[in-house]
């Protein structure tokens, strides 16, 4: 992505690139605020603020699509790869914003500190790993950093397996007539995290993968 900054060409694509980075930063900011929510420190106004951030992400999404289409329409296929990659990234970023909003809504249904009991440690581990994935994804996109991108892609599978194992375990251990509402929230949260991490993995893959393999595993050389 740094190639755009080295040349004066494709100024609309450069603008779209900046908007894409802003989308990711907004998404990351949403998830930082959500951290406070686990501890019951978030008030309803802050959760409403998160929904507004999602709307801003959506607005940037539409803006990037417009700029990319305009650029390709006006210049033919100049910077075609970069343009199509941006479209892929913003679609994933927009979904991340949606999941952030969904998590905010889930928390608003469960005010106060969320205590996941025996699953708390697993939850915090997945949460911390997802936060790290976010940081590495933004670094990968902003700096065209292949190492950071590969870290993200490699981190996804273990997190995904942890989430699946946790949910399977919860189904086995928590069977009965009633289930604690915190555990219902935990299951949904885990599924949301898995989806967010999948989208981050897709975004990171645009740095290292050829076009047709965006979203897939990096091919070993």
């Amino acid at each position, binding site marked *: 992505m740094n190639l755009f900054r080295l040349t004066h*060409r494709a*100024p*609309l694509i450069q*603008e779209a690139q900046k908007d894409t980075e802003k989308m990711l930063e907004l998404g990351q900011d949403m998830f930082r605020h959500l951290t406070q929510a686990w501890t019951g420190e978030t008030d309803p106004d802050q959760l409403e603020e998160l929904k507004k951030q999602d709307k801003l992400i959506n607005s940037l999404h539409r803006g990037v699509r*417009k700029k990319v289409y*305009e*650029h390709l329409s*006006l210049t033919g296929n*100049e910077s075609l790869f970069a343009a199509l990659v941006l479209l892929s990234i913003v679609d994933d970023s927009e979904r991340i914003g949606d999941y952030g909003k969904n998590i905010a809504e889930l928390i608003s249904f469960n005010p106060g500190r969320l205590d996941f009991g025996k699953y708390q440690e697993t939850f915090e581990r997945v949460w911390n790993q997802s936060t790290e994935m976010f940081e590495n994804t933004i670094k990968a996109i902003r700096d065209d950093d292949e190492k950071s991108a590969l870290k993200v892609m490699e981190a996804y599978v273990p997190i995904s397996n942890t989430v699946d194992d946790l949910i399977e375990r919860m189904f086995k251990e928590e069977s009965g007539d009633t289930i604690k509402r915190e555990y219902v929230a935990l299951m949904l949260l885990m599924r949301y995290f898995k989806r967010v991490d999948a989208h981050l993995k897709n975004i990171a893959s645009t740095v290292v993968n050829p076009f047709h393999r965006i979203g897939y595993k990096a091919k070993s050389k």
Partner: protein
Amino acid sequence: MVVGILYVFILSINLLGHSFSLFGSDFANKILVTTSNPFLGLFLGILATSLIQSSSTTTAIVVGLVAAGSLSLSNAIPIIMGANIGTTVTNLLVSFAHATRRAEFRRAFSAAVVHDIFNVSTVAILFPLELYFHPIEQSAIFLQRGFAGIGGMNLFNPLKYIIDPVISIIERILLLLPYSAAIMAVLSLVLLFASLAMLVQNLRKLIVGRVEVIIDRYLFGKDLTSMLLGAGLTAVVQSSSVTTSMIVPLAGAGILTTRQVYPFTLGANVGTTVTAAIAALATSDPIAVTAAFSHLMFNIFGICIFYPLKAFPISLAEHIGEFAGQSQSRVFMVIGGFVALFTIPLLVFIFW
């Protein structure tokens, strides 16, 4: 390179005028008689421009003929009006590329046909007015006199020192051949077509990528800035076909509405008159310059009428687009477009 191509363009205009003067007064009179019928002149302008897809080329040729005395100013004006209509073929062709998807085609076709509607409507009003009252001719003469008054006619005078010697050399060579006047005319047309096509291509490559941000900012903004953008971009790229067809895909994608396309299109119509002005100034002939200004005044008057009344061309274009978007009618619109812009003028020209 652009400077070189511009030189060839200016050379070709002067060469064309020179070739027609070699044909002699009989030939010149024949052209005058043929074009003396303003309706024929109008359809000639439509047909010629539809075929070569460049109103700039048609108007440059007209200016060259006026400078040579082979075409009178009053006969030139209907041809110039027709050229404005014929130039919209490119837009329609670009919109047909969107014909595979109904909604997309509806939007693209509306955006393309609004240009036709403006040009045809303007001709419908100004053509009869011009026949009886000559507002375009009179205002163009007024402009030319004012322009001459400030020394504008001498702008390209220095060019004579690098154009005339080359024309003399070409003439000396061609006079050794039979049909030298015809060969010179053909040579000048080839140079004219080639230089204008290369000029447009090169300027487009130079400009469009660099101004995409300006297009993004101002095309969606206020009408005046959109109009100025259309005029400025077209004046630089030297082709309204290029600039107006550039935005048809944006309309097809739904990024621009027909309402937003309209002021840009009006501006592009004004911007394209620069080519004829350059051609006319290169001849230093006052009547040729007046012909060029009449192209400008036709578009200015058109804007004065159909910008306040913009609801008419815009809603008509949207209705036509709705009809065009229906499945069977897409085929008919493609055929209809070609019939209107090629076949009808050709038949009128042949059988009149």
